[in-house]
């Protein structure tokens, strides 16, 4: 037997419990059914027959109030994903550090980039936008305020879209950053689309990069919302800065050969 644990190949990845390909997952959920044998059978059937998991085991079940039962289960996932194929659709922005971004802007644009950011509408969470824009940044990486070639304006939280736009025109922003908490129910989606629509109504969409960020925001969602990019958890200020810098550079001088990479 080999002394080294077997490593997964990236074309068929499954959950891992304590040995490769065991597919172990833990689940917890409530069923709107009275506690009892029927509820247990329902939970098992749901996991086994509908969720694509095998060997479900209920390790905990508890009545919450008449009509509701809570379960904790373990089960095995038989499916696998191909990581190589997933990578094909990710964005083409080249990763850059703070220094690299500044050098790139100096060389390619030769002028400071003006960005303005806010958490818009009724969203009271400003942590996201603060960590990207404020001097302090987070996790030891500076926010855009610290960049030599960026002029960052942070309007804070609960900023009406119209106020953000008025200020963006005022400072002649190149890019608007908004952070937003998007929940499963689509909370705050309307705030994001409204900003895009306002920019369109003002006839300024081509002059502004629109970037959104938040826990559930992906590039796919950003495209639907009408933004130029979407950033989620795990994004650092330099990621956002790299995108803005490279995108502005690409827009200022569209490459002659449309198929060639711009960097």
């Amino acid at each position, binding site marked *: 037997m080999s002394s080294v644990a077997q490593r997964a190949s990236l074309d068929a990845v499954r959950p891992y419990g304590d040995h490769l390909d065991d597919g172990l997952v833990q689940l917890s959920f409530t069923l709107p059914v009275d506690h009892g044998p029927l509820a247990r059978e329902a939970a098992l059937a749901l996991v086994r027959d509908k969720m694509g998991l095998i060997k479900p085991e209920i390790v905990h079940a508890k009545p919450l109030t008449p009509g509701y039962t809570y379960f904790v289960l373990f089960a095995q996932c038989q499916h696998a994903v191909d990581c190589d194929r997933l990578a094909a659709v990710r964005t083409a922005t080249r990763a850059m550090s703070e220094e690299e971004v500044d050098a790139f802007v100096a060389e390619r644009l030769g002028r400071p980039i003006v960005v303005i950011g806010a958490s818009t509408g009724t969203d009271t969470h400003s942590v996201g936008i603060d960590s990207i824009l404020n001097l302090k940044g987070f996790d030891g990486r500076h926010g855009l305020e610290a960049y030599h070639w960026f002029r960052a304006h942070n309007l804070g939280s609960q900023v009406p879209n119209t106020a953000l736009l008025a200020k963006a025109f005022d400072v002649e922003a190149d890019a608007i950053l908004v952070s937003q908490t998007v929940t499963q129910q689509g909370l705050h*989606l309307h705030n994001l689309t409204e900003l895009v629509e306002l920019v369109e109504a003002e006839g300024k969409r081509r002059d502004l990069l629109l970037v959104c960020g938040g826990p559930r925001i992906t590039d796919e969602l950003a495209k639907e919302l009408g933004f130029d990019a979407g950033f989620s958890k795990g994004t650092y200020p330099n990621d956002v800065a790299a995108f803005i810098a490279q995108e502005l550079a690409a827009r200022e001088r569209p490459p002659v050969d449309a198929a060639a990479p711009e960097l």
Partner: protein
Amino acid sequence: MRIGDAIAPAARVALVGLAKNTGKTVALGAILAELEARGETIGVTSIGRDGEATDAIDDAIAKPPIHLPPMALVATTDRLLERSAARTEVALPTDHRTPLGRVVIARLLERGTVEVAGPVAAQDVGDVVETMRRLGAERVLVDGSIDRRAGASPRLADGVVMSTGAVLSADLDQLVRRTRAAAELMTLPAVEDAALRARAAELRTSALLLEDGEAVPLETAIVHDRVEAIVPLLRGRADVQALVVRGALCEPLLEQVARARRGRATLAIADDATRVFLGRGTCARHRARGVVLAVLHAIPLLAVTTNPVAPLRHRFDAAELRERIARELPGVPVLDVLADAPVPA
């Protein structure tokens, strides 16, 4: 009436949803199926994304694929085209950049499914629409996204199909009211007085038009941010003929106008309905307070589609929903495309 008949007068058709999951993609599918049967050459672009397998927020919600006929033109991105199963050729690459890659206009060489994802900015969408027309599309469909209305601008489209659905509200009365309000907003009437319309169209900035032909320009800040500054400009003036906003006309400004005018009728003019932003209020409420909305360019509402199902939540009776909406919108074809004309699988 079938949806193909409803859109017949418009060469460029915009599809707009009132929210996510109101059945816009199903409506698009129904239109495509009917146009295919008529043998039309079709062009399709989307200001969002269409034909994806699952919802971008809730991946438990499966989305219908978009079946396109052979020779159809579709705006998509280089990266999405790479993973599409249909046989296609690139008719024209473009410089339009999106979060999902660079936009290309592709032609289908066989019947198949492709994720539709055109340019993000409305102006760029206009370019793509014109390009598709040049490349031979007899009819171009501009699909919207979530609740965005920009695609319905008269600059891009000759008419709009609006999709409403159960997802708007679990309360049927509320759903009907919201749909009526949205339809009323979308179909704001054009300014009747030709002279006034000409004067408004000439303005380069937002302004108050006075009876004597003079125009008092308004700063952008007053229109968007410091809206209360309009009150002293309006108070006590009997000679204001209209408020004209070039750009976005938003509710807070209308509220201040009503406050300043104290019930005296005031005409507020925007370029078109996609530039008017009402929050809580409806056109009817503003009218009741004396503010009448009008536009320079009206948008023909070609049809309204109804979707009785709110995914993973609730559903209404399909016939009742369609009936209720139809009663509120006389003269507009109201269709449930799934019930009326099942989309071929």
